[in-house]
């Protein structure tokens, strides 16, 4: 049992330092430092335009930072340090790193021309070289886990939004990632479908998955998060345990945000 107590002292699974990013003069990330430890669930909160999604997307190098570094599992993401310079990695290296980091999108982004099963099987077969039969068996297990057993032959269009998002989570899990990124996973859903997706995410959190979640679901953050991080204007203004940050925010920006959402 090398469990919980070791967590705090061990090297974090995700280590972000001095991250900066701007889009055409507009500063989106303004020096962000963040650690996420193995098995931890970190929820990013903040008003729209605060840089939450951009921060999330730098973790698997969908966005290239202007400055600063992201490490996942002790490995620099998207770059190689050599001769005193940071060289951007080639597409193969970046693809290998991304394969170990699952991502769930606001708009699901399932492949509409592939069946549910093929959505789940595609990456393990193409990237990891898993035999198709084996990948399909694992995909069926994952579909059962997200409550969609027997829907493997459906096409994404035939499913509800909540079902599609659960397939998207299963698709990310099919790569057996060490980390899962969620970019507003319930924001595009009808209110009555939010619960089923959050239930799957809670189940994942309980099973010890390391998760970095951008969401507006304060109740989810309160119940599931180990750490809540407030962003505003591209900076982390406050972070800590949800009991503390959500009930007794110290920074005026987080107080104002919570007052507006709750």
């Amino acid at each position, binding site marked *: 049992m090398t469990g919980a107590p070791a967590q705090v002292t061990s090297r974090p699974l995700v280590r972000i330092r001095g991250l900066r990013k701007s889009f055409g003069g507009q500063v989106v990330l303004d020096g962000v430092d963040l650690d996420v430890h193995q098995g931890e669930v970190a929820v990013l909160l903040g008003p729209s335009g605060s840089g939450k999604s951009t921060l999330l997307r730098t973790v*698997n190098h*969908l966005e290239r930072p202007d400055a600063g570094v992201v490490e996942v599992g002790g490995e620099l993401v998207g770059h190689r340090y050599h001769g005193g310079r940071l060289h951007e990695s080639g*597409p*193969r290296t970046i*693809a*290998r*790193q*991304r*394969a*170990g*980091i*699952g*991502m769930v*999108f606001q*708009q699901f*982004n*399932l*492949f*509409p*021309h*592939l*069946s549910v099963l093929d959505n789940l099987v*595609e*990456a393990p077969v*193409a*990237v990891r070289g898993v035999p198709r039969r084996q990948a399909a068996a694992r995909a069926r297990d994952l579909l059962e886990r997200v409550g969609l057993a027997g829907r493997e032959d459906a*096409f*994404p*269009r035939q499913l509800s939004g909540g079902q599609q998002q659960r397939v*998207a989570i299963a*698709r*990310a899990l099919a*790569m057996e990632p060490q980390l899962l*990124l969620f970019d507003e996973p319930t924001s595009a859903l009808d209110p009555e479908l939010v619960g089923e997706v959050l239930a799957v995410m809670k189940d994942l959190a309980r099973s010890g998955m390391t998760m970095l979640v951008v969401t507006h679901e304060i109740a989810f953050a309160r119940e599931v998060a180990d750490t809540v991080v407030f962003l505003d204007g591209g900076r982390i203004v406050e972070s800590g345990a949800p009991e503390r940050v959500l009930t007794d925010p110290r920074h005026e920006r987080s107080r104002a945000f919570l007052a507006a959402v709750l």
Partner: protein
Amino acid sequence: MSSSDTSARPRAAALAPAPEPPPPLHRLEDLLAAPRVAPRRPGRWISALVLLVLAAMLVHTVVTNPRFQWGTVGAYLLDGSILRGLELTLWLTAAVMATGYLLGIGVAAMRLSGNPVLAPLGFGFVWLLRSVPPLVQLLFWYELASLYPRLSLGIPFGHEFVTVRTAHLFSGVLAAYVGLSLDVAAFSSEIVRGGLLSVERGQTEAAQALGLGRTRIFRRIVLPQAMPAIVPASGNLLIGMLKATSIVSVIAVQDLLYSAQLIYNQNFLVIPLLLVATLWYVVLTTLLSAGQFLVERRFARGRDQRTATSFRRILRGNAPLLAGLS
């Protein structure tokens, strides 16, 4: 103040007695039990009738007018030189489309690459080739010898290794092949580029996040989703090009049309021989349209069901009159 008070009072008084609900015009049971009648559409029937009569007149005159000389048409339909012309039209179209699409995909890739040199070059290519009428282009290639009497292969601005005289290089067929290929390249690059751009950015991102490589993402995720946008436009271009190859007759390439012209220049049976060529174009276009239908159905997987399915639906879509009547 007081005036507004006085004006308000009579209105309030008028409202005071509860307005009686108007007596129902119909009993609800009657309304629910009543059969429904679709609106009459006299315009539809009249326009249909007029067009059907006109169509019947057209068929009648085409069949009965002896000057069409259908007998002669039949005699020349399978004539040896007509079939040789047909063969040339077919392989010229195939070669032009294959080469044009290879170039076109390359140009589309250039324009989408974001490369500061390649992207504007691709744009320039499309701009130039789309601006020049294919016939003019064809004549330019055919007359290349008067612009550049010699062509050579060597170091740019430096030593030349091989030199050929242009007049020997560009026969009519080669000029047609090069000119039409470039034309197809310009138009197909826009079709391909539009198709690729129609695929949501999120699809690529989702595939990237899974760790898929670039070629795999293109081949397995982006291209199949771009195809429904690419196929119909490409079918159009292919059919257009099949007929556009007939402009090679101006530089004496013996395609289907020119073969027919050679015959009628000798026997003056102009109309029947034009009909022979036309019939072959109709047959080929019909075959290509059917092929396009099959390809479209192949790529309709997982899409909105309305865009997919039956040949009958497509027929109806192409015949508004029939759709209106049914």
